[in-house]
């Protein structure tokens, strides 16, 4: 054949090349790699192709893959590559040789010639030889590309194949499956020699030559532990635990080892070991136990909490009921139980009737409660959050009515949904009783008030009556005084004429009279004067009572006053034939009083003394009592005297000891009464010392200096 001419450039096909490149990367053996290359070239060029490489037995090459060639041809090619000095063998000895035309080959193995291209790392001796049945001398671009890209790969595979011993290999898929198992899976022979380990197992039991010393030690330890454990169990199916070390972390791990002896198809017995990590399980168990304990503790806590809550609720005197959203009773405290719970079985046979009524009351109470709760239940009442009402329940034990105020509140969950209703009852018995008592108190109080008012009104009426009576009395008294004043005037006017004419006659205005005429006229005169005296005394009493008797206070001396009295009384004294003596205390002071009234009193007392004394005399004495600052003028007689029983009476109006019409002594009976009143006006008094037949002593006591009242 001619020297190889350059091949026309084959059309570039990047797609086909990419497919081949990917395929080559996936190839894990030299044979597969060679097959891919040969197939690709044969398809592209429609020419026979082959790849020759070293065989298993050292020194003899084999045809790794071929297309379109007979077995003899394949063998011839292999031999030609091995034969020293052959054109093909030059590729082994001449690194960098590029190609060889087939016609250079003796004993043509491929009719038509072929191109041979060395395969291997650039610059190194060829690891294999690629041959394509194409005429030379030009090497098509495809072939050059295949040689350059597949060469290094094939060389690597051949080196790897040569290093790794040939051993029974599971199928690739199966291998992948096993690798995917998360538990470590190992295949060993019966001595424990490792035949295969999946990825997880390798992590624990295999260390590459470039592993760290720590990992090496951990793996060695693990292998020893594994082998020892495996040896203990024999070859039957067995479970046991293996403690291993995590080579990465150094943690203790615990595995369960399950071993199964398997008889390989080609004879030798192998052992499949599956390790299951118990460490996590242990931890899980431990965690579970812990959780369980916590759960128990929480439950216990919850129970005690619930218990405490129960006790709190029970300690509340007011009945409390918790109901679910449907109105069913969930919980109630003791006070609520007394009203709403079915009574405990009483046991005693004789209490059937009582039980019956108790049950009826409980039923009634429950019915009342249900109708009360209906105000909160159902979609209609969704907007109502609380309800308050008054219920009258029956005490199941006694049947007495229990007025209650019930207050129900909805309990809402986190999402606002109704989770329950709490109802609290409040016993209103006391409140009602208090209200009733209050009402009663109010009634009584208003009754009392009415009574007080009527009493007050009555009192006011009485007062008014009294006031009117007082006015009437005053008016009557004034009328009496006025009457007496008028009467005295009416008396005086005619008396004035009587006394006047008598006086004129006695003076002889109408000529001289005979002695009997004169005597009779004198009697008219004296009776007229007596009448005048009576009228004057009545007038005095009236004036004193009417408060129309004023005090005229002045300085005067007692001796002069007594002299005047004696002088005025002289005619009467002379007629009485009695001795009248006056004795004045030495050093009698001047007095400040109503002279006229003092004189009137003394005149009256002396006149009385003379009237009631028949023999003996009258003794007048005046003295000043320094201690009391009073003046005392006493008139002592030797007259008939006055019995003690009458001593008070004689000072009363119109009273004498003998007030009978046949009495022996004249007079109005007003004299002493007037004296006593006048003495009182002076701030003094009139006293009496007397006994029948022993004479009498009347004494006027009055203060030396009178005070206006």
């Amino acid at each position, binding site marked *: 054949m001619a020297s190889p001419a350059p091949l026309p450039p084959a059309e570039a096909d990047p797609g086909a090349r990419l497919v081949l490149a990917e395929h080559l990367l996936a190839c894990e053996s030299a044979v597969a790699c060679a097959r891919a290359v040969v197939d690709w070239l044969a398809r592209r060029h429609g020419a026979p192709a082959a790849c020759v490489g070293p065989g298993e037995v050292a020194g003899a090459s084999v045809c790794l893959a071929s297309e379109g060639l007979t077995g003899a041809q394949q063998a011839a090619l292999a031999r030609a590559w091995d034969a020293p000095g052959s054109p093909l063998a030059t590729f082994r000895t001449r690194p960098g040789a590029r190609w060889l035309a087939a016609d250079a080959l003796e004993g043509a193995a491929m009719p038509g010639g072929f191109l041979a291209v060395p395969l291997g790392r650039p610059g190194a001796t060829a690891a294999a030889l690629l041959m394509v049945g194409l005429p030379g001398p030009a090497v098509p671009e495809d072939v050059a590309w295949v040689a350059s890209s597949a060469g290094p790969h094939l060389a690597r595979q051949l080196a790897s194949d040569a290093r790794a011993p040939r051993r029974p290999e599971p199928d690739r898929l199966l291998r992948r499956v096993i690798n995917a198992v998360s538990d470590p899976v190992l295949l060993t022979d019966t001595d424990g020699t490792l035949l295969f380990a999946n990825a997880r197992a390798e992590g624990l039991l295999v260390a590459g030559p470039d592993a760290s010393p720590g990992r090496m030690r951990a793996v060695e330890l693990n292998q020893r532990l594994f082998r020892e454990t495996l040896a203990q169990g024999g070859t039957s199916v067995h479970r046991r635990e293996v403690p291993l070390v995590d080579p990465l972390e150094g943690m203790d791990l615990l595995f369960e080892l399950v071993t199964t002896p398997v008889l390989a198809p080609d004879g030798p017995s192998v052992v499949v070991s599956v390790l299951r990590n118990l460490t996590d399980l242990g931890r899980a168990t431990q965690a579970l136990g812990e959780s369980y304990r916590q759960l128990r503790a929480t439950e216990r806590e919850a129970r005690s909490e619930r218990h405490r809550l129960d006790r709190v609720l029970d300690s509340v005197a007011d009945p409390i009921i918790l109901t679910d959203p449907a109105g069913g009773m969930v919980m109630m405290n003791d006070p609520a139980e007394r009203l709403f719970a079915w009574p405990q079985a009483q046991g005693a046979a004789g209490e059937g009737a009582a039980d019956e009524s108790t049950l009826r009351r409980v039923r009634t109470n429950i019915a009342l409660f249900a109708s009360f709760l209906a105000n909160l239940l159902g979609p209609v009442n969704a907007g109502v959050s609380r309800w308050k009402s008054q219920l009258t329940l029956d005490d199941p034990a006694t049947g007495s009515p229990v007025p209650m105020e019930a207050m129900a509140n909805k309990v809402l969950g986190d999402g606002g949904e109704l989770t329950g209703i709490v109802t609290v009852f409040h016993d209103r018995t006391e409140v009602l009783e208090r209200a009733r008592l209050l009402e009663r108190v109010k009634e009584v109080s208003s009754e009392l008030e009415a009574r007080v008012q009527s009493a007050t009104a009555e009192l006011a009426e009485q007062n008014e009556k009294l006031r009117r009576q007082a006015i009437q009395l005053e008016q009557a008294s004034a009328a009496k005084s006025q009457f007496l004043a008028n009467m005295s005037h009416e008396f*005086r006017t005619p008396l004035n*004429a009587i006394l*006047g004419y008598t*006086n004129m006659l006695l003076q002889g*205005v109408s000529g001289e009279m005979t002695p009997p005429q004169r005597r009779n006229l004198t009697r008219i005169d004296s009776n007229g004067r007596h009448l005048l005296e009576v009228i004057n005394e009545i007038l005095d009493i009236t*004036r004193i009572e009417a408060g*129309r008797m004023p005090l005229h206070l002045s300085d005067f001396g007692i001796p002069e006053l007594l002299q005047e009295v004696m002088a005025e009384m002289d005619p009467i004294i002379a007629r009485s034939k009695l001795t009248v003596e006056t004795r004045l205390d030495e050093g009698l002071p001047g007095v400040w009083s109503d002279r006229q009234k003092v004189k009137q009193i003394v005149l009256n007392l002396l006149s009385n003394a003379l009237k009631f004394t028949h023999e003996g005399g009258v003794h007048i004495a005046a003295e000043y009592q320094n201690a009391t600052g009073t003046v005392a003028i006493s008139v002592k007689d030797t007259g008939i005297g006055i019995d003690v029983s009458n001593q008070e009476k004689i000072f009363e109006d119109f009273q004498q000891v003998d007030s009978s019409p046949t009495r022996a002594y004249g007079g109005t009976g007003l004299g002493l009464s007037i004296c006593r009143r006048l003495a009182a006006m002076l701030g003094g008094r009139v006293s009496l010392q007397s006994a029948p037949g022993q004479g009498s002593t009347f004494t006027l006591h009055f203060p030396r200096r009178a005070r206006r009242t």
Partner: protein
Amino acid sequence: MTNSPEKQKPLVLVVDDYQDAREMYAEYLEFSGFRVAEAKNGQEALDKAFELVPDVILMDLSLPVMDGWEATRRLKGDARTKGIPVVALTGHALKGHTDDANEAGCDAYVTKPCLPDALVDQVKKMIARRDAAAAR
């Protein structure tokens, strides 16, 4: 004044509505040497007093038509009669009368019953006082 030689006796005007008393005093006054004029009430007393200008007037206080107090007030309020002494006579012994009488201008005060001789004494006293006052 009125003491002309023919009328040397003093003139006393007796005013009293009670005829017996009036005539009794008049008789005793004449008996005692006085001339007497009489009046039954206050108005008559004023008329007589202005007409006769008496030396003394005896005036009962309780009078019809015009009472003694009013009559006295008028007499004392008139220049013609102002100087004539007035002796008040009353049966009312109550206090108010005296005060009223003094206030009205009475020169003396006599309580009834008053005996004719006591009254004449009072009249003489009045005339003496007046003469004494006139002599000064």
